[in-house]
């Protein structure tokens, strides 16, 4: 982890056409290779912020900077997992996973290899040829995560990626994400609703206020790495979750 900022939002405000004031003067800087979690009440503008950071939505005011350069278009260097799985219904599980590689023009052999590895990682080998219509909610979400990881983007924006996963899979996927993050030196911004999850994973947790969303707390998580699930019962962990829960309650 370095101190250099890779992705930054500067004084972002956003008003939707129907008058909903979603974001109010949000500034945030993601340090290179940091893992940041974003928590906040339902409807406060977390997804909106992620869409703006990904270059998908031009903000009403403010800038997004990637490596100090303003961006106005989505970048392949930024991977995003949407809140909905957003699978293409006419592509099989395999086809959905390999889509980013195909779009990037990767040769077939390498593509196959990577896709199979990813299928394995998300534990869906036997469903390679299944269409999304016959998947369970959790399976679809695992594919969406795999699809964002597969082309190895530098920055990962994750919008509640583990929402539909059972406790065990969720823990497995979290650990996997930590491993990928540590190994590939990625920068991660993840929206989550689980406070323990945020504390377990993040270097910093940002807390957003109810709409219009502002960042009202920026909590450093000084737990040493590597971390594992055993942390969950350590008193400093519990204290941190309590502190976070408290600052969220205040924000409400």
């Amino acid at each position, binding site marked *: 982890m370095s101190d250099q900022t890779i992705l930054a939002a500067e004084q972002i405000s956003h*008003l939707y056409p129907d008058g909903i004031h979603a974001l*109010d003067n949000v500034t945030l800087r993601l340090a290179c290779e940091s893992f940041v979690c974003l928590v906040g009440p339902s409807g406060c503008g977390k997804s909106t912020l992620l869409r703006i950071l990904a270059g998908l939505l031009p903000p009403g005011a403010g800038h997004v900077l990637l490596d100090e350069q303003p961006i106005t278009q989505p970048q392949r260097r930024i991977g995003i997992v949407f809140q909905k799985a957003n699978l293409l219904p006419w592509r099989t599980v395999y086809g959905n996973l390999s889509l980013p590689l195909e779009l990037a023009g990767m040769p077939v052999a390498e593509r196959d290899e990577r896709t199979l590895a990813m299928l394995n990682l998300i534990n869906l080998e036997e469903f390679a040829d299944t269409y999304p219509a016959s998947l369970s909610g959790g399976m679809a979400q695992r594919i969406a995560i795999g699809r964002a990881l597969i082309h190895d983007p530098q920055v990962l924006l994750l919008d509640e990626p583990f929402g539909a996963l059972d406790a065990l899979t969720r823990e497995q996927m979290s650990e996997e994400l930590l491993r990928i993050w540590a190994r590939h030196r990625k920068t991660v911004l993840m929206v989550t609703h689980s406070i323990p999850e945020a504390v377990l994973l993040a270097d910093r947790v940002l807390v957003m206020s109810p709409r219009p969303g502002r960042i009202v707390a920026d909590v450093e998580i000084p737990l040493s790495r590597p971390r594992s699930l055993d942390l969950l019962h350590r008193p400093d962990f519990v204290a941190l979750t309590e502190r976070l829960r408290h600052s969220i309650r205040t924000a409400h």
Partner: protein
Amino acid sequence: MNSRVQTVDEGRPDHQTVPASSLPSTLLVAQSRPRTRWNLLLAPTVGIILLLIWEGVAQSGWYASFIVPSPVRVANRWWALAADGSLLRHTAVTLREVLTGMMVGVLAAFWLGYAIAKSRTAAYALTPYLVALQAVPIVAIAPLLIIWFGAGIASKVIICALIVFFPMLVNTVIGIRGIPPELRDLMRSLEANPFQTFWHLELPAAMPVVIGGLKVSATLSVIGAVVGEFVSASAGLGYLVNFGRGTYDTPLVIAAVFTLTALAMTLYGLAAWLEHILLDWHKAIQN
């Protein structure tokens, strides 16, 4: 820097170039699609250009005036026709055929399409015959229909209904079949009766595609009436076209064709208007 076209055209201007500091956030303007007035001027402009070209060609003398009569002569003929009331009379005849035909054809197609989309039995039993019926070239059997149903309005209404039928049918089937099964499950879990399912789920969900069928039908229906009037009629705009042709009155032909075109466009416009008011939610999604 790709997929630019799409972004620009979707009306998402690059607002981020406005420095945030100069803009107190409470004054932020809601980002709505810019309703560029220039766009609205495009169509009339093209229209005027086409008209000028026409006038130019007519005056150039490249073509004899009977092949390309000048717009002014056509307009005069049209006024003359309108002034003595005969335009209104012929338009009324055709309009009546078209409206009746559309009503019959569109309603029949909608309900049959609905049945086909929902019931395998209906699909198996009906589809081949409906396709066959539609595949029979209506212009080829129009004279037969005139013999069977007389030279009056009935035969034209039937021709109109037949030609309008298929686009509506196909789009209704697609629309109803395309309803997500999850939403059907929702209605079933709430014990919605068939009528409620139709009214609260199927009709609104299928509407975008069904209205597409209606738009196609609107323009085809006018063709249907003209086909009927060509075979035999003593009034109506199609008759007027034929009469103009038979008497070498090209301005009359053009005036009648323009009136027919206006009729079709009006019907299309009605369908588009229906779309506009019924599919508010759909537009919202597209934004």
